[in-house]
């Protein structure tokens, strides 16, 4: 009986000791993770800008505006690698601990595009940085310049870029690529699209507003550490349509302005020589300054034709650009692979893509929504 009790107690003890041991080892605990910090010493870095100066990496870290409208801070550090520059940044400033876990945006200067893969490698390995961080390329100029230009007493580049992300999600048009997206695209297809940004003269007039604002300018096509080119406005929309990304655009068609509410793209091909791209768009009238009646079928079909022509231009523009660069950034290949995977495996897609003929068909449907003229007449009668 006593022996049994001892055995049972021993089993309990082993179990009790095993739990913490298992948790610690299976959770990948390391010494680095077990270091404690006091939060009051932190400087939350929200934007990291990477540039190349004389063969060295220059890191510019920007904090956002503080809770009580404390002005944001900018820190600089140099290093032979990004990790070294980050370490130097941490060491240089003894007042606060530079804390990178809250980094939301990484901006790469146009001259430092060849560092892209290194940046992504650092993001993937770091315990602080996450793959969900948004990544941008500055159109022409250094990232540091952009950070400095956008620094105001009550706003910073971090806040502006956060607004850009929020706006893209709110209006349902455009896409901000993250480090994870770029990394997976480079690994899978050898190219990636990255949002291009540039400073623009600010129109804000309130006190403390910065002189410059930030604007997005389409996507940069990056392959093998080089920027092959950038998409213009039309091609950018085409890329969004073909990649099945949010694309709620407003298009003016004479007296009527319509908003595309839903867009669907189907890509198919039997011989991979002629590729059929079928786009179906749903739109609604949001402004009518000419008293156009959508009940008139002829007027409606004319509007639909005009909308289709606009969309056709956008799609064609992006397809031509992608053929010009020799990079399938419109994701035609992956769509065809999904459609007929066995056939797709047997062909040299790159060769087919460069010589492919695109048969684009657009079907636009403008829904009859609120007929303002009728309502006005009704109101007149009542009076």
């Amino acid at each position: 009986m006593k022996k049994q009790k001892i055995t049972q107690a021993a089993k309990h003890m082993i179990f009790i000791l095993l739990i913490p041991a298992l948790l610690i080892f299976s959770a990948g605990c390391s010494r680095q993770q077990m270091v404690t910090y006091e939060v009051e010493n932190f400087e939350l870095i929200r934007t990291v800008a990477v540039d190349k100066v004389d063969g060295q990496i220059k890191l510019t870290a920007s904090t956002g505006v503080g809770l009580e409208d404390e002005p944001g801070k900018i820190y600089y550090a140099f290093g032979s690698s990004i990790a070294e520059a980050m370490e130097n940044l941490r060491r240089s400033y003894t007042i606060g601990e530079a804390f990178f876990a809250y980094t939301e945006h990484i901006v790469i200067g146009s001259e430092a595009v060849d560092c892209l893969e290194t940046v992504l490698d650092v993001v993937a390995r770091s315990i602080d940085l996450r793959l969900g961080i948004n990544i941008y390329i500055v159109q022409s100029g250094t990232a540091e310049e952009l950070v400095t230009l956008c620094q105001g007493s009550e706003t910073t580049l971090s806040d502006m870029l956060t607004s850009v992300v929020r706006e893209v999600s709110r209006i349902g048009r455009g896409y901000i690529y993250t480090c994870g997206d770029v990394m997976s695209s480079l690994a899978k297809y050898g190219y990636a699209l990255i949002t291009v940004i540039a400073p623009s003269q600010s129109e804000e007039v309130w006190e403390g507003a910065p002189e410059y604002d930030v604007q997005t300018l389409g996507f940069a096509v990056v392959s093998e550490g080089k920027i092959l080119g950038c998409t213009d406005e039309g091609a950018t929309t085409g890329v969004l349509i073909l990649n099945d990304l949010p694309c709620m655009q407003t298009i003016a068609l004479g007296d009527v302005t319509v908003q595309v509410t839903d867009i669907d793209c189907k890509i198919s091909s039997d011989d991979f020589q002629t590729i059929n791209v079928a786009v179906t768009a749903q739109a609604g009238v949001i402004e009518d300054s000419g008293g156009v009646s959508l009940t008139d079928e002829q007027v409606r079909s004319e509007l639909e034709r005009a909308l289709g022509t606009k969309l056709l231009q956008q799609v064609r523009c992006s397809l031509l650009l992608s053929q010009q660069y020799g990079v399938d950034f419109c994701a035609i290949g992956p769509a065809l692979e999904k459609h007929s995977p066995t056939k797709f495996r047997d062909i040299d897609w790159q060769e087919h893509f460069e010589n492919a003929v695109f048969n684009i068909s657009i079907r636009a449907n403008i829904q009859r929504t609120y007929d303002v003229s009728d309502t006005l007449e009704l109101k007149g009668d009542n009076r």
Partner: protein
Amino acid sequence: VFSIKPQKVKKDRVNVPFHPPDPEPFTAKLSARAVEDIFADCYDFQKRELKLALNRGEVTVCFIDGLVSGSEVAEQVIRPITSRERLGCAKNQRRALELIARGGAYGHTANVRENINDVVSDLIRGYCAVIFDDIAAAVTFEVRTQEKRSIDEPKEEKSIKGSKDVFIEMLKTNTMLVRRHLPDPFLKFRSLTIGRRSKTTVTIVYIANMTNMLLVEELEKRISSIDIQAVTSAGDIEQYIADRPRCAFPQLLRTERPDRFCTNLLEGRVGLLVDGLPMGFLAPASFVQFMKMPEDNAYHFITASILTLLRYFAITVSLLLPAVYVAVAMYHQEMLPTRLMQTIIASKQAVPFPTAVEILSMLAAFELLQEAGLRLPDTVGKTVSIIGALIVGQSAVDAKVASPVVVIVVALAGIAGYTIPNQDLSAAVRIWRFAFVIAAVCGGFFPVMSLFCLLIYRLCSLDSFGVDYMYPFSQGGAVMILRALLKPPLYSEKLRWPDTGSVDRRKQR
């Protein structure tokens, strides 16, 4: 030379001999003189020598003043035994004793005693003894004083839609309350006596054709094995009959409400009432029972279900929130949203203490306030709580001794703890809350989760009278778990919970 200084003895427990309790400590022949000797130095002991009618000899009436009602002794005992009409026909003392025992006196109970130990035992229970010295016998009458606390409203388990009565210190009143709530002829009260000196009466309460008799036997066995001086508090029972008395979590359900006591009896549990304690105990008890409110049945089942879920959420918050805050603030800062992190940084800027010291001291201050509020009289207690909250909360923040976030975290954990229906469980959670904070200080979430696993393991290894403490979470199945977390409508609860092993599981058609 007499010295009150205790001797320093090594291995004290070994050197002090063990004497088993003596059921008959007095050996003298039963007589008024012998009883008087036993109660020497007792100012409340009273005796009165009386002559029986027609000069049939002398008897002595003894009682403890205060325990018995003087007027009842005079009216129901002294007057009849001195009356010629009632005892005139008694030829000798033996015959007189028989007449008294068989209705010559008016007491509603009359016991003939020939052993001095029985007489002494009766006297200290509020009986009056009529001792016949010549024949060494006595008749004892129950003439207990009716002075007792009134049946008040429950203070610990507030009732809104339920009955408002509450157990008091008198066992008989408590059994009466149970009988009134549950007038079932199969309701049984099995009586036992414990306490070497107090000789406290405890009553095991069960429903004969429903309760698992093994439970009753087990409870009786455990109570019989209790060897203590006196039963003066609930701990004197709980700590002796609990399966794991070293565990801080309560293992006996304690209630001051007769309606809750009866509801649990109807679930197949065994009850325990103790003379002198204004509460009833119920066994077996599982964690789920401690999370239930007596009011749950009174509410609509949707309301009751949401409140039950809220309680489970509250116990988690109360147990883990300070530890999670410490872990996040010290080790896993990347987990918080940016704005919240900025708020925490801003609030901690001027505080000179590290997070660990800050939160441990605030928790300690909170406990001090709670203790002070509990120990002081109601009016003063409330004032202390308000002033304490102001001082410890607002002033500490103003003086930059503590950050507002820490005050909020500690206050939230404390308030969440108040929603736990059982005070014993709440106390256990308070202890473990400190343990979790210390674990978080040591290494963030990993020690916290390790400790949490250990706690779950510990709770799952507990049992109460053979029933899993964590039933149905440990082995009950999905349906039973849902029944524990949510309150099904009363009309759909056809069967009793299986954990009590009730012999009659069906509750309704």
